């Protein structure tokens, strides 16, 4: 069995990330950002990835990283979820980094680890782990085709594009990129197009993409845990201080019981997210099962938490000028990202020998 607890180093790391995000990305700032054209918060990302070193946690020291593991990176993902922070951590520091590490690439991965460049996997963000169908054709070292709905596609310096014979790196400047008005404006999509774009093959075969998606899905569960925790904390704080009929609404039993159920679901989400991160860190053979369970479960928990957050805030939770909708949009988008719960349950069925009818 994997270790499902947080170690001392992880707790310290969490504290540091939380302080940094609280200082540089309070939710009012995040909210203001969603209406700007900026595809992400570059200042925040430089602080978090570059100076703090959060982007290179799972990268070996010899490649320019911190030499920790996906367990520690998962703690960062939690805090990013809790802060609904608009940074390309999942896409660049997890998915692209995991793909490049699997490919044995050693140049770009160092840049990513230091936050100097941003790379993203050019797949539609709803793609489940496994082998995504190649959407581009390769001819003479150049790519042609379209990939819609790429997360953080506008923030990226490099696009990592799956093709039939492997994974290609394309300079973002050589690709067409159209911003997408996204349900979750804290992690925006872009439609990308390649018209004979010069490309460098960084991996043969499908293994690298697979690693990127699987590791991404594993750590997305931790982000979802953080979203859920943020929602629960905000909601509990609200119901303690919001009075109706002369009593704090948190004294009404129906709300209390729903919050207790939510808390219970979150304790489970914490356990499954930890297990998935630990499996990713250790290359545990249980990884695929752990990821499918974590995505099926944490997706639902984060959405439920955000929906309860809106509802229990009442009218104020339905307004633009409150943080609840930032959680809701990110939670719902994250549930679809890297495969819906439905897709993950279907994948799980094959893994645990429970074949469909």
């Amino acid at each position, binding site marked *: 069995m994997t270790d499902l607890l947080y170690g001392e180093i992880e707790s310290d790391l969490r504290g540091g990330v939380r302080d940094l995000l609280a200082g540089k990305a309070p939710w009012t700032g995040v909210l203001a950002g969603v209406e700007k054209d900026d595809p992400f918060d570059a200042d925040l990302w430089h602080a978090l990835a570059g100076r703090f070193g959060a982007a290179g946690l799972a990268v070996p020291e010899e490649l320019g990283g911190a030499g920790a593991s996906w367990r520690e990176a998962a703690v960062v993902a939690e805090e990013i979820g809790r802060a609904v922070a608009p940074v390309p951590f999942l896409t660049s520091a997890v998915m692209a980094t995991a793909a490049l590490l699997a490919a044995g690439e050693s140049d770009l991965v160092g840049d990513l680890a230091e936050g100097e460049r941003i790379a993203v996997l050019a797949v539609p963000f709803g793609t489940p782990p496994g082998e995504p169908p190649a959407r581009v054709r390769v001819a003479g070292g150049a790519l042609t085709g379209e990939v819609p709905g790429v997360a953080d596609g506008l923030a990226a310096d490099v696009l990592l594009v799956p093709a039939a014979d492997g994974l290609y790196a394309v300079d973002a400047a050589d690709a067409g990129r159209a911003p997408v*008005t996204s349900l979750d404006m804290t992690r925006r999509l872009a439609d990308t197009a390649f018209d004979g774009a010069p490309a460098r093959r960084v991996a043969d075969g499908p293994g690298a993409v697979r690693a990127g998606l699987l590791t991404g899905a594993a750590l997305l569960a931790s982000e979802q845990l953080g979203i859920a925790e943020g929602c629960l904390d905000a909601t509990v704080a609200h119901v303690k201080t919001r009075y109706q009929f002369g009593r704090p609404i948190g004294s009404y039993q129906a709300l209390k019981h729903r919050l207790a159920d939510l808390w219970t679901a979150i304790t489970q989400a914490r356990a499954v997210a930890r297990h998935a991160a630990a499996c990713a860190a250790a290359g545990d053979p249980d990884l695929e099962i752990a990821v499918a369970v974590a995505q099926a479960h944490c997706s639902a928990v984060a959405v439920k938490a955000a929906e309860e957050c*809106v509802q229990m805030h009442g009218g104020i939770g339905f307004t633009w000028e409150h943080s609840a909708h930032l959680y809701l949009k990110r939670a719902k988008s994250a549930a679809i990202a890297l495969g819906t719960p439905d897709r993950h349950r279907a994948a799980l069925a094959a893994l645990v020998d429970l074949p469909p009818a």
Partner: protein
Amino acid sequence: MSTAPPDADELSRRVAAFLAEHDPAATDRLKFLRARFDAGLAWVHYPRGLGGCDAPRALQRDVDRLFAKAGAPTNRPERNGIGLGMAAPTLLAAGTDEQRARFLRPLWTGEDIWCQLFSEPGAGSDLAALGTRAVRDGDRWIVNGQKVWTSMAHEARWGLLVTRTDPDVPKHRGMTYFVLDMTAPGVEVRPLRQLTGEAEFNEVFLTDVEIPDAHRLGEVGDGWRVSTHTLMNERVSIGGAAVPRESGMIGVVAGLWRDRPELRTPGLHGELMRLWVEVEAARLAGERLRQSLAAGRPGPEGSGTKLAFAKLNQEVSGLELEMLGTDGLRYDDWTMRRPSEVDFTRRSPGYRYLRAKGNSIEGGTSEILRGIIAERVLGLPGEIRVDKDVPWKDLPK
């Protein structure tokens, strides 16, 4: 004119006579509507002199049909739902003769749009906790406070306003009800943006607003009782219409399923069918309620229908996004728009998902509705009240 209320035949004779005198094609729209009001053919169940002729309410539909058949202009009821649905019955029940005479005609003709100024930031489900203060100053009142969730405030001429006039008595006893002139100095209307990006509603800030005592509705301190007239009529207006199978959001998702075979998975199919059955069950329950009302047997099922559809709209729209996968991650427009009506089906799936979240909050939260069902229908004990005998000013807020 006879003194007995007219029956169906008599009413159709009157409509015919009216139409003979006022050719819809040749008469100015407003002139026509005012004349129809004065002829007692506006809302036929209202008293004579106030747009009606004391006829049974059930005959209204026939009268409207006759006018429609003749190509008569309507009073555009969709633009003045609060006026027609809530202000009018409240004026009828609690207004003085002068107030009814002054307000009801332009209300019915659509010249005056009305809005409702009840909710406050600190008084949502607990309306009687409201704190907007009205202080008497001779034959006028000076009002200060803030109201929220006011639809149509930016277009309304008059507002239904409930205020706190006596903070020293328990909350239900110290309220007074007014008609507010929305053009009066000190009335500031600001759009209230919601999580969809748009602003259907407003906040209304009241700063030293003067209201003449002649615009008070009901006695001083009687505001809670007058409010119940308004709110009772709010509830009646919800969930009454017959809807065909696969209406609304489930129709959108069912259409998506039929049109886009590539999106189908066994798991989504199970969820779709589960929701389809639930929506159909809720629809039939709504239809049964409609039949009960038509048979003159009003039931308490309306709260259940609202409760069920709020939940189902949320679940169905959530399923739609999952069905769409990456396409479900897109939105149509975050700019702040001021829609005149909510149309779930014409906007993007993301909009439907977000807007549906309001269904369990607006017009009575699902929590309040469950409490109403538990207490009024099932007869379970009420919540323990700690605010009953406490002066409003001493309540925790």
